[in-house]
Every structure is written in C-alpha cells, then in structure tokens.
C-alpha cells in the first residue's frame, strides 16, 4: 500500500515538470509582454528595457525554465513580476479560500447529488424523479454568473439573510458554495440515478430481497456500494473542475481565491505567479487522483488485489 502511494507520488514529478514547461511555453507564445503591461501605456522604451533586464526576462526560455525548476526544488517559487512579492505569499493568501469553497461545493454536490440520485433510482418516474431531472437540467444549463447574481438578489437584497459577498463568516460561504455546486450536483444526481438503477436490476439484489433483507439495507449496503465506482470517478473529475471553474463564482461573490489570482496573472502575463498557481492545481489533481484510486481499492476488493 505504501509503495503504491510512494510510486504514485514519484510519478507526479514528471507530470509537474511537464505542466510547468507547457505553461511557460504558452505564455511565451501568446503576444503581450509582462513588463510593458505592468509599466502601462505611458512607459518609455528605456524604462521597459531596464525593467525587463532587471527581472531577467531577456534570457531564453530554456534557461529560464531550468532556473525556475532548480529554484522550485529548493522551495523557492520566485517573486511575482507585478508586485515583486514572493509567490509563496501570494498563493498562501489565496489557496485556503479556494480550498474552502471547493470543499464546501464538493460536499454539497456529493451529499445532495447522491441523495437525490438514490431517491430517483428507488422511485423512478415518480414526481420527485421528474422534478429532480428538470432541476438537474436547469443546474447544468444555467451559467454560474447568472445563478450567482440571482441568489444574491434573492437572499441578500430581498431577504436580508446572506451577505452580498466576500469571505468571513460561515454565512459568507453558503451562496458561493451553492452556486458553484449546482452544475456538479446535477451531474452527480444523474450519474447516481443511472448507476443505482443499473445495479438494482442485478441478480444479487434480487437474491438479497428474496433473502428478506430490508429494502433500506438492500439499497444502502448492496446497491450503493456497487454503484459507487462510477460515482466516485465522477466526483474525482468534478473536484478538479470545481477548482478550475471556481473563477466565475469567485468573481461574482468577491471570493478571494486562486481562480481570480490566476486570471489576473494571465492578463498581466505574470508567468511567475501563474506557474506557482498552476503548480498548486496540478499537485491538487495528483492528490485527488491518488485518493480516488485508493478509494477504489477500499470499495472494490478486486481492484485492491490487482494493485
């Protein structure tokens, strides 16, 4: 088990190296230069050249890449081009917020999605099922910035229950987490419904019912555990998507997370900050994938034996 984890984490290193290279290459290829953007419209060419030289941006791509990787190995993520502030500090300001938002959204979409999906599967074509299917279509189709603003208007303006935005108390987390969770919740519900429906048709479920096992136990213990694999895969993918897609929610709710930080870095061509942020995301993906794989092992002994 431990060797499995260790091997997976070691495999993550080439992944991260590749990610850094792709980001650096992309920034290099798109037009626009960090220094001129930073100094603004009124900068003289001498000022631009001086600053570019000072920041070492004159050096060729491979030289900068090797230098960057070397520094990262020593734990130094560099200084952001815009603010000359350690990237570690900038990321430390932002990533707990993203973690909080993504985790809350994942919990909401998993809990409510699985619950709704199971109920729909156990009572297919009921009124609840129809409503749930309509609701999930709505959740999948409506853009985040629309649902977000509507929720703000309803729950912050008309009914003064929630704050308008920002971060702080648990109350601040409710609306953004719900907004971010909606599309994900919809997908989890649909996936759970179809997965559980499939399993409920299996022979071993019929056997369990024939044995006289209570319906509740049939669903919870036998059906759900077997239906869990595809749901788990989806949740793993959703976790990644929630992290990356949080930027729109963060903008609407003024949530100070990594998504907004990354967009700001892209517009300013601040590749040092951008790489730091992408590294965190890449690392998070690696950890999530590892967790999902381990969970497969826990859920299905056949997979664990294959290792």
């Amino acid at each position, binding site marked *: 088990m431990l060797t499995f984890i260790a091997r997976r984490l070691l495999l993550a290193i080439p992944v991260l190296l590749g990610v850094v290279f792709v980001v650096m290459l992309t920034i290099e290829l798109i037009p626009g230069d960090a220094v001129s953007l930073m100094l603004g419209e*009124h900068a003289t060419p001498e000022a631009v050249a001086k600053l570019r030289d000072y920041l070492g941006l004159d050096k060729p791509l491979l030289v900068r890449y090797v230098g960057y990787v070397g520094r990262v190995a020593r734990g130094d993520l560099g200084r952001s081009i815009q603010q000359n502030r350690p990237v570690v500090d900038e990321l430390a300001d932002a990533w707990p917020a993203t973690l909080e938002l993504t985790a809350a959204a994942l919990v909401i979409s998993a809990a409510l999605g699985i619950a709704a999906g199971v109920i729909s599967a156990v009572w297919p074509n009921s009124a609840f099922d129809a409503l749930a299917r309509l609701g999930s279509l709505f959740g999948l189709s409506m853009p985040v910035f629309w649902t977000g603003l509507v929720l703000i208007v309803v729950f912050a303006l008309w009914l003064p229950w929630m704050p308008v935005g920002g971060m702080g108390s648990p109350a601040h987390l409710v609306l953004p987490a719900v907004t971010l969770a909606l599309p994900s919740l919809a997908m989890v519900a649909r996936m759970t419904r179809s997965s559980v429906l499939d399993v409920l048709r299996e022979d071993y479920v019929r056997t369990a019912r024939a044995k006289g096992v209570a319906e509740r136990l049939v669903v919870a213990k036998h059906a759900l555990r077997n239906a869990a694999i595809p749901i788990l895969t989806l949740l793993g993918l959703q976790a990644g998507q929630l992290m990356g897609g949080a930027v729109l929610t963060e903008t609407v709710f003024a949530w100070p997370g990594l998504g907004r930080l990354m967009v700001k870095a892209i517009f300013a061509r601040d590749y040092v900050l951008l790489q730091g942020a992408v590294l965190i995301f890449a690392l998070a993906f690696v950890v999530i994938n590892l967790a999902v794989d381990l969970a497969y092992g826990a859920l299905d002994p056949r997979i664990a034996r294959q290792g």
Partner: protein
Amino acid sequence: MMPARSALLSALAVAWAMSVCLGSVSPAEAQKKGGTLTIVRPTDPVSLDPQLETTAPGAWVYFNMLEPLLTMDEKMQIRPALAASYEILSPTKVRFKLRPNVKFHDGTPLNAAAVKFTFDRALRGTPPARWASLAGSLSGAEVVDDLTVDVMTREPYGPILRTLAMYCTGIVSPTAVQKMGPDFSRAPVGTGPFKFVEWKTNTHVILERNPDYWGDKAPLDRVIFKVVPEEGARMIALQTGDADMVLLPAPAQLAALKRDSKYVVHEVVGGRVVFAGMHAGLAPLDDVRVRTALIHAVDRKAILENILEGSAVPARGVLAPSVFGFKDMQLDKLYPFDRARAKALLAQAGWTPGPDGVLQKGGQKLSLSWLAARGRYPKDGEITEAIQAMFKEVGVEAKVQFLEWATVFTQFRAATLNQHMFTLGWVTSNADADYSLYALFHSKQVPPTGWNTSRYANPRVDALVEQARRSLNQTEREKLYAEVQDILAKEMVWIPVYNTKEIVVTRASVKGFTVHPVEYNLWLRKVWLDK
C-alpha cells in the same frame, strides 16, 4: 407675575427660536466625527507604493496616505500641499519651502532629505519607479536646508509644477523604506490624513485616521476599501448598506439612483478621451479629404445617447476640458454629422460607388482594417461597431478585428502599425497639455518611442509643442497649445468620441465628498458620515 399659560407660551417661543437658530448652522459645524466608510471597487491594488503602482486601484488608496509637494484641487488649480510655498529660481530649478513640524506616520520628521530620497528612489532606483515615465524632464532634488529643497529638471520643463502635483509623487518616509525593504509596498508610510492598518490580498485594505496630521484631522475613524469585481454585486452592496460608496458604478442604474433620495450620484467630467484613431501614414487615410469625410459620417450624438446613456459627455477635442491648455475644437461646428457632405468629400477625392455599394478608386475598394479591444474602455467595442456601421452608410467598408487588450496594446506599441483604424483612450496623467500633445502628435513620438499611433507629422506642430514644453511662462504655453489644436482641427487624425465622466455613487449619509476630475484623486479627508 405671569399667568402660567403665557409663561408656557413664552417658554415654547424661546425653545422654537433656539431650534430655528441651531437648525440653520452651517454644515461644517454639524459635521459628525467618527464612523467607518466602506468603499467597494472592482480590483485589488498591485501595490500601495507609487514606486510599483500608478493605476487607479492602488492610487485611490495611497492618495490618502502619501502627499506630494503640491496638489490639484477640484477646479484643477495648483495648491500647496507639503510645500508651503515655491519659487522658480531658473528654467531648470524650482525651490520649495516645506511646511514645518510635519511628521510621517512612523514619527520621523518630514524634511528636504526625505524629498530628495523619494525622488532619487523613483528616478534612479533599480529599477526606477513606475511613475518615472510620467515625470518628463524631472531629474532630481537637492537639499538646501532642513526645510528647503530644490527640484531640478534636465532641461526647461513647462509642466514641472503640474508634474509635482501628480498623485504618484507622494513623499515617503526614508526610515520606513530602509527598514521595511520590499514590505514597504504593502504598508506604506507617508504624511497623509490616513494611515495604513491592514491589507488582506484580494479582500480589503483598511486605513485609519492619522491623529497627528498637520492639517484638519479627518472626521472618519476608518476607511475600508473592499474588492467586489462584479458590477451587479457592487450595486447590490450599496443597496443593502454593505457599502457606503461605489467606485465604477453600473451606468445603466444611474438614472434610477439619481431619482432616489437615499443615494447621491457624484459626477464630473474626467480626463480621458476615447477616440477612433486613423493611421495618417497609410493610404487612403493619408488624404485629409478622406479623413474629414469619415468624421462627417459619424453621428456622435447618437452614440453618446444610445450607447453611453449619459455616462459620458461628447469629446470637445483631443484633450479633456480639465487639462491645462485645453481648447474646444468646436467639432460639432467643424464636422457636423452630414452623410451628404461625407459622400461629396469622398467623391472629390476620386472615390466612386462600386457594384456592391462600397466605394472604389482605380480598382481598389475603400476597405479599412481596424484593430480594437473590448472592455478596455467603457463601451469601446460597441462604439467601434457603431462607427463601422456608420461608415458603411457612406460606402466605406471597415473590417474590425477584436483582440484581447494585452495583444492589442502590443501591436499599438510596435514600430509598424498595419491597420488603418484603431480604438484607443488617452488620459492626460499630469493634466498638462504637453503630456498629451507632445506624445500623441510630435512626429518623432511614433511608437515605440511615444504614442503618435496615427503617425501624424506636421513640422509647425512639432516646433510649437517643443517650444511650449520648454517654456515656463504658462500664458505663452496656453497660446502655443491653442495654435496646435487649431492646426489639428484642420487635419484631424482622430475621431474623438467621448470624454469620460468620473462617477461615484454614495449613500445619502456620506457627506463632504466631492468627486475630482482626475480619477486617481479620491479625496476622503473631508468626508463624514451622517449616521
């Protein structure tokens, strides 16, 4: 002895008289001290140090903490700030007498050495300050005695006083800079009416009153600048009371807010002109008749009314009215919206209608390429599209390419511009005509050196702007700039569309606030809350 009833009546009369007298006190006396002002705006600062940041998000905040030698009031008049008086010693040297007994927020005294330190750091630091590019010929400062400092320029520089009144030339505490190093940009120390408390990245910046300020102490206890990127969310925050002041409010809601007594809409004509620029070096736009025709083809009034909906005013020239040296170019008189006239001028220039309605000459279509960004300036995309449609009505075809601002900016700064038309905005940072007319219209200021994106070249204009730049006689300079604008009016290389309005919305309980024509000058020192 008075009967009881008339005693009561007299008492009531006295009480009524007193309330009338006290009720009509001037606002200054009824000013309430205390309270926290919450301001919402779209972006977080990059830095609170002018060394690293000259854009509005940082400037709005540090404007209240750092003070320059001079300042510009809302009427764009130069007033003393940290300098109590000044004297022009020579065309390249101005002597300033500093106010005595002024202290920085860290307790160290303001003196000539601090001024010299600030300018050396900005102009000769590694790297130099972001604002060094805005400082023109400013070369440094010399200490004469503790409270006297001489500011020098490399050559005679007419805009020197306005340059030293810019928001970004605030004097910093040398002790703090040396002690804090790079952390200074996150927690600056100046002499202003407010001092720094806290900055939570992408969330808020908090300032509090400076109790040792040299001037009138600010009525407010605290100011909180919050980041709310979404325009709709900013307006909702204003309505729920989460915010007292909104910077960059939603233009569509202004009309409704003006009718509501719970809010006050503060507006004033600002310093930015947004225009459709023409590449005067690229045929067919090198023909002044074609350029003139294009201006006649644009219905600027319709654009202002339907697209900008009152959030801007028509541009009256290439400069904003708040700029020193501004002359109203009478564009509506010289170039009224007149399709017939446009068509006539184009015909005069040899362009005849082709089979598809697009004009042509010698087998060539009158087809113009246009580079623009969306969202860099209010409604820039919509205005470009509107003008494109208006051109079509007179037989001119315009092909617009919309790209992201950073990309567009790179192309504008390149040595060659391959497009005929471009959409751009320009703000005169030091509110002096030299800043704009020199960089925009001098023949040697073609990118990447300057901002003459139109590639305009007129030797008389060159001579005039050079002379005006070197003169310290402000009356003479005004005359020279007037002539420049007269010449430009005859050879237009821009289609000026609108002049921004600086608009700030506050709750009615916010008093003592006046919006300034320069967007960076957010004056909070006289603001008080009537709560």
